[in-house]
């Protein structure tokens, strides 16, 4: 990744498609598998992650000149873990209703290496504004990916779409909740962890196919932080 300024449009294209955290970089597999049992869960995890990702990118980018290469990783980890804890505490204190719904997801963000990956691959080398945009774009791409994986698993596994969305987004969004297949007994495996792998594999294949159709070689994935989850 070069240090010259990058256009906002390119950042969003990277985040949503070319360098999508889940579908192109294959990062953040832990939350992708664990949380996407329904579209609503995927959406909640994605939105919470986006918020943390934007703030962490801004912070890392702001302190990048003072951080030496040798100790950057521990400093990133400390900053990200602190951020997640701060978000958790303030939501619990001041937006308690939202915390009851999102609270489960927030602690999981710490193990999301997409955040460390963006700190390492982008925010450490770019300005604050570009880093904020990159965090937003990557976060939205992550949200879309998790929601799509969640929706497919939910549809095949339980025959519904966005079940319990009104718990997450408020009663106004209950129109999203759909029972697509009535009297459907469900394919339990899709809700269980193997379903996550199957759906992700299928969606990856679809993305590769689309990339080929558009006569565009699948872009080489930029080197990201080494991370095992």
């Amino acid at each position, binding site marked *: 990744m070069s240090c010259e300024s990058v256009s906002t449009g390119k950042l969003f294209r990277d985040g949503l498609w070319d360098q999508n955290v889940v579908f192109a970089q294959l990062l953040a597999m832990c939350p992708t598998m664990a949380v996407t049992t329904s579209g609503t*869960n995927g959406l909640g995890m994605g939105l919470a992650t986006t918020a943390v990702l934007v703030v962490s990118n801004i912070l890392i980018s702001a302190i990048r000149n003072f951080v*030496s290469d040798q*100790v950057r990783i*521990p400093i990133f980890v*400390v*900053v990200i873990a602190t951020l997640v804890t701060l978000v958790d505490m303030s939501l619990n*204190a*001041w937006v308690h209703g939202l915390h009851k719904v999102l609270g489960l997801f927030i602690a999981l963000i710490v193990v999301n290496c997409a955040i460390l990956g963006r700190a390492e691959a982008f925010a450490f080398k770019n300005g604050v504004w570009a880093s904020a945009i990159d965090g937003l774009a990557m976060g939205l791409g992550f949200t879309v990916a998790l929601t799509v994986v969640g929706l497919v698993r939910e549809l095949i596994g339980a025959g519904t779409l966005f079940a319990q969305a009104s718990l997450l987004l408020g009663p106004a969004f209950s129109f999203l909740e759909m029972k697509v297949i009535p009297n459907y007994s469900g394919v339990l495996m899709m809700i269980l962890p193997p379903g996550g792998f199957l759906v992700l594999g299928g969606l990856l294949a679809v993305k590769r196919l689309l990339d080929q159709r558009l006569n565009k070689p699948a872009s080489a994935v930029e080197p990201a932080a080494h991370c095992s989850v």
Partner: protein
Amino acid sequence: MELAILRDKIGYHGISLALATVLTGAALMTANRLTLPAIAQAAQDDLKASLVQVLPEGMADNNLLADTVSIPAAGKEVTVYRGRKNGAFSAAVFQYSGRGYAGEIVLLVGLNADGVVQGVRVLKHAETPGLGDKIEVAKADWIHSFEGKALDNARWGVKKDGGEFDQFAGATITPRGVVKAVKGALEFYSAHRAEIAGEKS
């Protein structure tokens, strides 16, 4: 640039890392100070709201939060909220916790004077979203299956273990933990019934 030279000094690494941890630690301490009262207040409000849910209407006519007794159990104090009707002991509500799949599950259990479950609610848990969180009343009706059950009229276990309570697809440990905790709560009540039903403190 001076900063660039300084950054490569070994001492700078240690100091910058120490500074980062001190600053983030300070931020966490401040945030903890600031949020502690609000979080405690929110927990208290949750408790009040759930107290009403685990006792059917008409079971008690007093303010439960004001009539409590502390009973030591397994190394910690259990606070029992006592319900009274026309001054006579009629119900007990207390928190009891068990182990789930991912840590502690804190339950609020409401019993009538004879030790029959009136209602159970989960106050706090960290179970897997989508699998284990069906113990929340907002996500599934499962938690209602304890109502009307007592130590002597139910087989206390999940179906897989020969009991009568459903487990969830993909999550057996969570409901098993909850069933065990509710049973523990009933045993606690029957062991301390005299103290709980005793005179107003």
